[in-house]
């Protein structure tokens, strides 16, 4: 591996006689290099010169006078730009086309019962843009006509509430609403990594995680309207309107606390169809499968329901062969998102290490970061706001000296719970439980600047 960072030139940097610029001297260089069998270099240099790509101009034509991006005014400084409302719903820059949610190859055999991962490595702050929110569908997604959507509240027996009720979307949206920021994480997030490193980037290791501002009605209001007998009705079944009619049991304690919402809004607009438009349950701190999408029915009951996703899936296999059932809380966890696996650092020098921390039990209290694989740690800055059961962004200054480094982050929540290491977690849960892997993540920065997903022992 080469000693110097092997990266494209940062834009705006002045370089003498750049390689892609076909001055007579450059051409001589090209052919000199070609003799050393660097065919890719030749092809790239010619391609850059012949096609005049953006890439070719970004750094290659810098010369001694200065940056051509300054010396030669670009079109956008000399012409007339686009009109307002040229796109009624604006989209990201075309240069952001790499920032996409993606499937992990081979993970599922159908695309309807599958998952796409959010590109955490490319996101800032704590909010996930709605179009990049991770997806998990059990029988495909739908775009449901909200005027025909209904929410039913009933009981597993008639005595558990005074009256079973029906609500239209119009009615639900008339009720007193709250807007709150919460993370949602799939119980299987990081599940591929229980036994060994399996995927290259934090999109795939941690991307079944997103965070939004959700707007909706506290479920407690609806239950009060129905006259729920809270003494007997200690469990709630939530059910979707899609083909799988997903069901999950939620404890009444979370409804009574006022945290559980029947939500229709997400990041200022309505929910996206992939996120359950027009109505989904929001169960802060609890794994995503309980946030039932296309929510059509809530049943209050006096015992848990043993649904498919509580009895066949989303159960955690423990050493000894028992499965844990009704594991719901997402325990405290964090990940460094920049730099992270699959990236290559552009140069030595200053970097801001940045990442996300969260806990299903409340606020994140502290995040520590190490660059030496866990021997010494420094406490990171937490960016405001730090909210309960919500992503928290942390940052730390770092000077990269060009030597190998192992980056990790370790979060602690307000209950005092400290995020465990892979070794500690495996000692209790083995390697076959699939779900609820909240171990500390390690990224190895190699001398080449390439960052790789690694596990330590």
């Amino acid at each position, binding site marked *: 591996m080469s000693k110097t960072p092997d990266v494209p030139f940062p834009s705006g940097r002045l370089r003498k006689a750049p390689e892609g610029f076909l001055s007579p001297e450059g051409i001589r260089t090209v052919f000199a*290099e070609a003799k050393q069998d660097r065919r890719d270099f030749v092809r790239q240099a010619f391609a850059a010169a012949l096609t005049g790509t953006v*890439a070719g101009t970004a750094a290659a034509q810098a010369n001694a006078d200065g940056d051509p991006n300054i010396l030669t005014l670009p079109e956008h400084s000399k012409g007339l730009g686009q009109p307002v409302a040229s796109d009624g719903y604006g989209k990201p820059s075309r240069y952001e086309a790499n920032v996409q949610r993606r499937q992990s190859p081979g993970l599922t055999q*159908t695309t309807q019962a599958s998952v796409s991962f959010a590109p955490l490595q490319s996101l800032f702050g704590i909010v996930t843009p709605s179009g990049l929110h991770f997806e998990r569908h059990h029988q*495909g997604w739908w775009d449901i006509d909200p005027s025909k959507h209904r929410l039913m509240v009933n009981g597993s027996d008639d005595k558990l509430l005074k009256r*079973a009720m029906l609500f239209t979307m119009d009615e639900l949206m008339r009720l007193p609403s709250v807007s709150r920021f919460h993370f949602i994480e799939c119980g299987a997030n990081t599940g591929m990594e229980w036994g060994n490193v399996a995927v290259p980037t934090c999109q795939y290791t941690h991307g079944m995680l997103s965070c939004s501002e959700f707007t909706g009605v506290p479920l407690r209001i609806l239950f009060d309207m129905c006259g729920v007998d809270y003494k007997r009705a200690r469990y709630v079944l939530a059910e979707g309107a899609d083909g799988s009619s997903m069901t999950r049991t939620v404890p009444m304690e979370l409804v009574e606390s006022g945290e559980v919402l029947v939500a229709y809004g997400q990041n200022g607009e309505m929910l996206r169809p992939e996120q359950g438009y027009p109505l989904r349950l929001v169960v802060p701190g609890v794994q995503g499968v309980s946030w039932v999408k296309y929510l059509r029915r809530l049943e209050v009951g006096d015992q848990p329901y043993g649904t498919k996703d509580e009895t066949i899936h989303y159960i955690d296999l423990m050493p000894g062969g028992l*499965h844990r*059932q009704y594991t719901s809380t997402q325990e405290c966890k964090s990940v460094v998102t920049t730099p992270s696996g699959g*990236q290559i650092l552009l140069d030595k020098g200053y970097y801001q290490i940045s990442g996300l921390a969260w806990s299903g039990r409340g606020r994140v209290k502290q995040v520590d970061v190490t660059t030496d694989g866990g021997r010494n740690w420094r406490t990171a800055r937490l960016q405001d706001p730090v909210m309960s059961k919500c992503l928290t962004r942390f940052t730390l200054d770092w000077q990269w000296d060009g030597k190998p480094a192992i980056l990790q982050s370790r979060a602690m929540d307000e209950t005092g719970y400290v995020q465990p290491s892979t070794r500690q977690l495996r000692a209790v849960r083995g390697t076959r439980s699939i779900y609820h892997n909240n171990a500390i993540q390690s990224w190895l920065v190699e001398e080449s600047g390439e960052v790789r997903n690694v596990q330590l022992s």
Partner: protein
Amino acid sequence: MCSSRRLFAALLGCVALGASAQNYPGIGRPATKAEVAAWDIDVRPDFKGLPKGSGSVSQGQEIWEAKCASCHGVFGESNEVFAPLVGGTTAEDIKTGRVARLNDPTFPGRTTLMKVSTVSTLWDYISRAMPWNAPKSLKPDEVYAVTAYLLNLGRIVPDGFTLSDANIADVQKRLPNRNGMTTAHAMWPGKGLKAGAVDVKATACMHDCDTEPKVASLLPDFARNNNGNLAEQQRLIGPQRGVDTTRPPGARRDGPLAVAAAPTAPSPATAALTLLKKHSCTACHGMEQKLVGPGFKQVAAKYAARNDAEAYLAAKIKSGGQGVWGPIPMPAQALSDTELKTLAAWLAAGAASR
């Protein structure tokens, strides 16, 4: 006086109805019995919600072969579309209620019958979500029959068995993993279930910590491009770029080509691939291989030599068909003529996957 009496009566009514409902007049209405019956389909572990009815193993086999086998295999063993349903359980497990193979790390995968601890769950999910492309189409007796067949495949009920609401509780007592669940953990955010302590009580050591910074696991070099070229999955500006995983680790990347490269134009296949998703074609067809119906590449190969392939395929998609690729029919598809043309042209041209 009259008005205060009315107010008093209203207050009484308010108390009788429950204070909160009165706080939001005009919102919500009582559900009718028929409405509740139409949607309240869940079946609990104590069989509350289970409709009366029955179905035999042999009836179940007929339904299975027509509606279930294409995804799950004739014996519930298939791993093609979903994880296998059947296998890995023994007569001894039926006695103990614990599946011994769950302790065997070398046993490949975990089947549904190895995991499921409540028979109500099978009935409930088959009833609400199966078959895959026509959920909620089975009548209660058919659900009993399919459940009976599935249990028979696991030798939990005998060949001549008829499952019913009257005997399902006895079948529960034979479920191989009925004693295989625990709630002894700290991850249920309520008080009702028997709980356990937090698994790991880690401490936040800050300096000279005991650690083993030896790399024990990383992606082997041959797998570095498994998730696609990572250079195309990272932002094109900022402190880092994506690694070009089409090249070996440490390979020099001369020149500035990866910087702010303009996004590539969508390929001709993009429109067709979008339509496949939109119309759920991929629920039954794989890109390469048969799922329920033939893979798109297989279709393309079969008709590659036909001059009228595009028109023929457009007509086939529109009308549906049966018998060309097997006994499972493909229903007629409601696509616009433009969409039909796009898909048929894409198939006729070889069904490129990108």
